[in-house]
């Protein structure tokens, strides 16, 4: 396989393609589940007028319930036919991409009459892309919000109190100062909390990450609207943003990773040293404080509140709302009858009784006449009288430049890619594929190299048994952890040349990699390991597997605890049907990271891109 030099433009294209890939594949906004291609609705509208909806995942259950009630009422369209609403889950970014491409029903499900992304900002993004393609805008600019939730800075209550909140307003400027203070929390009388650590999702993939980026940039500029390209180039604004980014723990595609890690850390009693603050939606603070950090109660699960509650800080410089608009699309496939039917459903969901229901999901009603009540109350760490100032979504061209600027100025990473080259990696990837698992993993990992920026340090380690000239090694370092910019070609060649070998010394190589990364820890970077394996620990001696695993987990947990910790995040990828997801999840959680599931080997491209979104 030949690989040519990657130019900056091609790299940018790669980033965009990866973003689209993730947007198409991962949950939209800050949702927790993956997109189901083709949607999830199988309801038969019979002779009624079908109103298909594409909705962001966080509200799919609520809208399905509402649609069920609405459909039962047999409301009539102007034609006299009944109206039948069919909501289908589609992440915001994926839906925007599908609409831009004309919506392929075979791949994307039924063409929507109503599109409800997490934020109306997605409508602006779609319209801008359509305009660039000389196509007509599809998302009306004045869509009604179905439900609302503002972006907040979630902070453990003792830390918020130490900053003087709520008596003293707190904003991004305060966080930037704290991030740059060499004393860290010691400046507020709490040296035991260590440095200020911020959790923030990747703005290319996450609505709250994008909102946080907009908000911090406005804060740096001193404006609340009309952010310009000149503002983005202003050294003061750049410096401000860099100061914020310097405190980032890691990025990622969903806020749930932070919330789950925080929740687990809270159970272990070290929530205050995992993260000092995370940019999330207000709704997530309510979910967390009520003991349900992922917002979903599994069968048999009961909510158990954390030991230390979070407080929603509404940034003093202003914030943005996720407004969940109902866009009745200006699309060629939408008939007059469907348009009228969509209006009927829109009116229905705005009825006070139906708007009351959004409250139980932690959202604020979109209907201005329905009071904001429980659970949006002070006892859940939120303030219904906030925010006091709202920021405007910048113009689309400024948004694009903002994302490009972030890609250049985000916190740099120091990453060791640890790839399994055991014999089973030579098995076919799928029953119908002629490619092996290793073939697909190589393609995916080579593609993700373009997602790193030039000054990210990236190394490559492979592991199996019987490695090295004497066949006595369990891993080989093919590329050192150093700046990727000038070495992308070498890394590509190294990955391209991998061949399957023997066993899977998973625990041994994980521990060794962790120790090596701790030894070279760089506090100015995100320090992480990306660990991919298709199997379970098989080092030739199964008698000590449990002891090996326990020792590894103990070491990892110790590494992320305490004010002087040198946290190395281990993002694990369970690849193929035989991957030991249980062990990989434990490893990831012990290092306050996340495990990614690619048991469907064909999904490895998407999953790799999701993993790299953490940097």
């Amino acid at each position, binding site marked *: 396989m030949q690989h040519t030099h990657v130019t900056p433009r091609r790299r940018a294209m790669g980033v965009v393609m990866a973003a689209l890939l993730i947007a198409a594949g991962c949950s939209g906004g800050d949702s927790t589940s993956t997109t189901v291609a083709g949607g999830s609705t199988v309801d038969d509208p019979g002779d009624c007028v079908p109103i298909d909806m594409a909705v962001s995942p966080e509200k799919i259950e609520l809208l399905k319930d509402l649609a069920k009630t609405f459909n039962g009422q047999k409301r009539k369209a102007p034609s006299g036919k009944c109206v039948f609403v069919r909501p289908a889950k589609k992440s915001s970014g994926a839906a925007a991409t599908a609409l831009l491409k004309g919506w392929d029903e075979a791949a994307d499900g039924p063409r929507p009459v109503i599109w409800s992304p997490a934020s109306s900002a997605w409508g602006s993004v779609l319209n801008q892309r359509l305009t660039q393609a000389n196509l007509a805008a599809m998302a009306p600019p004045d869509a009604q*919000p179905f439900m609302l939730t503002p972006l907040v800075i979630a902070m453990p209550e003792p830390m918020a109190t130490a900053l003087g909140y709520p008596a003293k307003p707190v904003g991004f400027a305060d966080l930037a100062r704290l991030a740059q203070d060499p004393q860290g929390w010691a400046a507020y009388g709490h040296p035991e909390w260590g440095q200020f650590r911020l959790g923030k999702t990747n703005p290319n993939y996450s609505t709250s990450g994008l909102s946080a980026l907009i908000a911090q940039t406005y804060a740096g500029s001193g404006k609340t609207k009309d952010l310009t390209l000149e503002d983005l180039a202003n050294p003061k604004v750049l410096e401000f943003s860099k100061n914020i980014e310097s405190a980032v723990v890691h990025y990622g595609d969903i806020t749930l990773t932070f919330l789950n890690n925080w929740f687990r850390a809270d159970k272990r009693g070290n929530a205050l040293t995992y993260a000092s603050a995370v940019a999330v939606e207000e709704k997530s603070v309510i979910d967390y404080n009520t003991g349900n950090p992922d917002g979903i109660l599994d069968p048999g699960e009961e909510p158990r509140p954390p030991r230390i509650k979070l407080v929603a800080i509404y940034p003093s410089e202003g914030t943005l709302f996720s407004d969940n608009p109902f866009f009745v699309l200006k699309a060629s496939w939408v008939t007059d009858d469907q348009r009228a039917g969509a209006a009927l459903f829109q009116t229905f969901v705005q009825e006070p009784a139906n708007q009351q229901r959004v409250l139980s999901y932690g959202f604020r009603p979109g*209907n201005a006449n329905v009071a904001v009540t429980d659970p949006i109350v002070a006892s859940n760490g939120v303030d219904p009288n906030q925010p006091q100032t709202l920021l*405007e979504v910048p113009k689309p061209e400024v948004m694009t430049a903002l994302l490009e600027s972030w890609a250049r100025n985000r916190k740099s990473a120091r990453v060791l890619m640890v790839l399994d080259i055991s014999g089973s990696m030579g098995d076919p990837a799928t029953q119908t594929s002629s490619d092996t698992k290793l073939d697909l993993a190589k393609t995916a990992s080579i593609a993700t190299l373009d997602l790193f920026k030039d000054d990210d340090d990236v190394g490559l380690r492979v592991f199996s048994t019987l490695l090295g000239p004497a066949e006595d090694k369990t891993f080989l370092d093919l590329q050192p952890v150093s700046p990727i910019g000038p070495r992308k070609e070498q890394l590509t060649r190294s990955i391209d040349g991998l061949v399957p070998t023997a066993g899977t010394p998973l625990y041994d190589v994980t521990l060794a990699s962790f120790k090596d990364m701790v030894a070279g820890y760089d506090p100015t970077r995100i320090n992480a390991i990306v660990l991919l394996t298709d199997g379970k620990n098989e080092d030739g001696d199964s008698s000590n597997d449990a002891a090996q695993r326990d020792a590894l987990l103990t070491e990892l947990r110790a590494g992320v605890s305490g004010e002087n910790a040198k946290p190395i995040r281990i993002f694990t990828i369970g690849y193929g049907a035989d991957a030991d997801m249980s062990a990989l999840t434990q490893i990831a959680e012990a290092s306050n990271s996340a495990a990614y599931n690619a048991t469907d080997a064909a999904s490895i491209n998407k999953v790799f891109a999701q993993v790299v979104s953490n940097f």
Partner: protein
Amino acid sequence: MNGKRAGAIVIALVLVLGAFFVRRQIDGSSTATPSGRDSSALSAVCTPEAATACQAMGLGGVKIERPGDTAARLAKAGGTLGADLWVTPSFWPAMVTELARQSGNDSPTALTASPVIARSALAFVTRRDRAQALAGSCAGVANWACITTKAGDAWTTLGGQASWGTLTIGLDNISTTSGLMGVSAATVAHFGRSDLATNDFDDDETFGSVLTKLASSAPTSTAGGTTPLERYLRIPATASSVIEIDAVARPAVAASRDVASIERGVPTTLAVADLVIVGPTAANINSIDRSRWTAALVSAGWSTPNAADLPAPSGLPPAGVLVALTTRWKQIAQ
């Protein structure tokens, strides 16, 4: 068929026919005009702030349209209303002639106007805490002159809190009644009189900055609703305040979840919208039941034509000046 069943069918038929008769009597009494014309035979173009009343009048057809758009259409050569009636504040029809002249159309559609059927002043809506701060910085009286000159100022300089940001004023498009009246109120407040001429604008070098300040203080996002007031009530932080016709603001604020924390006021110098019905056919205008229209409008939030709290003058500049003001605003707000 036995006799009992036949009798039941006859009775049922009588009941159905009787019901039709009674319904027709009811419908006739509610829609017939004094001259006997059935209002359901008439269609109307209505300004959005009169939409509720228009839809309650049992007209043959109702189209809701921004009055600036209606006026622009009528001012074009060959432009038609597309309906029998136009329910609108009186200054819009007056502007049609001026707009037509501006575009070289010497014979715009002739319109006959009814007397005023309802009135409403321009209102200012904000949170109580902000209203208090603003009043404090306006020597106790937040009139249009003070409000509009403070537009865009940091709340900290107005006695408010830093977290409130700046005094942003939600102002609708200049093609809407509240949009044009808001700009007009700022203009009248600046000059201290409404009998303006367009050359007054050029003679006063400071006037441009007044409009620029007002325009730059207005939020530009339209997410969340079709009007600034809708957006403000749904998401209060979208703006510090909103300018809207009181006929719209009063019922909307009263129904809002935030009614206890919102203050709605009618600043001086009053700017008043005089609602009229105009149309190309005088007979249609003469045939309308004005008292019924007024009743419908009052129940929707408007005041009667002779409301004691609204003195007769509208407080607006002449139509030609409003046209010039519209042009100037569009240049600034772009």
